[in-house]
C-alpha cells in the first residue's frame, strides 16, 4: 500500500473482532515502529506487546479511554536516561508519538485497525505491567481486526491551517 494512501485511509478503530493477530504481523508492525526517527537517534522507546487475555483485561480496566478489548495492546514506553532533563523527556514523548504513527500506518497497511489511547491511569498501568520506575508509559495503541468501518471525520481545509512565510498570511 502506498504511504499517502495509508495516511488518508487510516481511521481510529475502537471495535474489533475476536480474531488474534498473527505474530508475523506484529513483528512487521514493531519493525516499522523501530524505524521511526528519534531525537539524536536516542531510540529510548520500549514496546510492551500485550496479548495475554488476562493481562489485556487488566490493561483495559485501568484505561477508561479504551472501550473494548482488542487483540493486542502495544504499550509504548520511554526509558528515561538517568540524567534526563525536561527537554529529554519532551523528546521522548515526541519520539513515542512518531513511533505510534508508524505502528498505526503499518497496521492499516496490513489490514488491521488501531487506535491511540492516552486515557489510562499511569500508576495503575505501571503496576499491572511491572514497568520499572525509570520507564514511563507514554501511550497505548490498540490493535485488532476491525469490526467497524467509520466514516472519515472532517478535516480543516489547508487554507485554514497553512500559512505562507508568516503566521496568518495566506498560502
Amino acid at each position: 500500500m502506498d504511504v499517502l494512501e495509508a495516511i488518508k485511509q487510516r481511521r481510529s478503530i475502537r471495535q474489533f473482532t475476536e480474531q488474534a493477530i498473527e505474530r508475523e504481523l506484529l513483528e512487521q508492525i514493531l519493525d516499522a515502529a523501530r524505524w521511526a526517527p528519534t531525537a539524536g537517534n536516542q531510540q529510548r522507546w520500549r514496546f510492551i506487546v500485550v496479548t495475554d487475555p488476562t493481562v489485556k483485561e487488566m490493561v483495559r480496566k485501568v484505561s477508561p479511554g479504551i472501550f473494548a478489548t482488542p487483540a493486542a495492546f502495544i504499550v509504548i514506553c520511554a526509558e528515561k536516561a538517568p540524567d534526563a532533563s525536561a527537554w529529554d523527556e519532551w523528546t521522548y514523548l515526541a519520539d513515542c508519538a512518531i513511533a505510534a504513527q508508524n505502528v498505526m500506518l503499518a497496521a492499516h497497511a496490513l489490514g488491521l485497525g488501531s487506535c491511540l489511547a492516552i486515557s489510562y491511569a499511569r500508576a495503575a498501568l505501571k503496576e499491572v505491567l511491572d514497568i520499572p520506575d525509570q520507564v514511563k508509559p507514554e501511550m497505548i495503541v490498540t490493535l485488532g481486526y476491525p469490526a467497524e468501518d467509520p466514516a472519515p471525520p472532517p478535516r480543516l481545509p489547508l487554507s485554514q491551517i497553512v500559512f505562507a512565510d508568516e503566521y496568518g498570511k495566506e498560502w
Partner: protein
Amino acid sequence: MGQRMMVTEDDVFELLAFLVTSARLCVDEPRLYGTFRLVDGASRLLGFVLESDQLEDEQFLQQLKDEIDEKKMLLVADQEGYFKFLDDLTRKVARELKERAGAAP
C-alpha cells in the same frame, strides 16, 4: 422494584477500576472529559445490571444505555449536540424517577 440487586465480584472490580482510574485522569484531562467518564460509567453500570437479568422491567434502562452508547462520542464531534444529549438524558432519568415515585406504594 426496591429489591437489592446482586452484582458479581468481577463487576464490582471492573467498575471500581473504572471509577478510581477515571478519578485520576480527571486531574489532567480536559474538563469535559469528566462528564464523558461519568456517562460512560453510567453505561457500564447499566451493562452489569442488564446482564444480571434481575430487572422486572428493563426496557427503560436498556434504552438509556443504548442512547448513551450511541451519543456519548458526540463530545468529540458535536459539542452542542453532546450538551443537548446530556440534558435529554437527565430529563429522561428525572421523568422515570417521578413515575417510579408515583408508582410506589
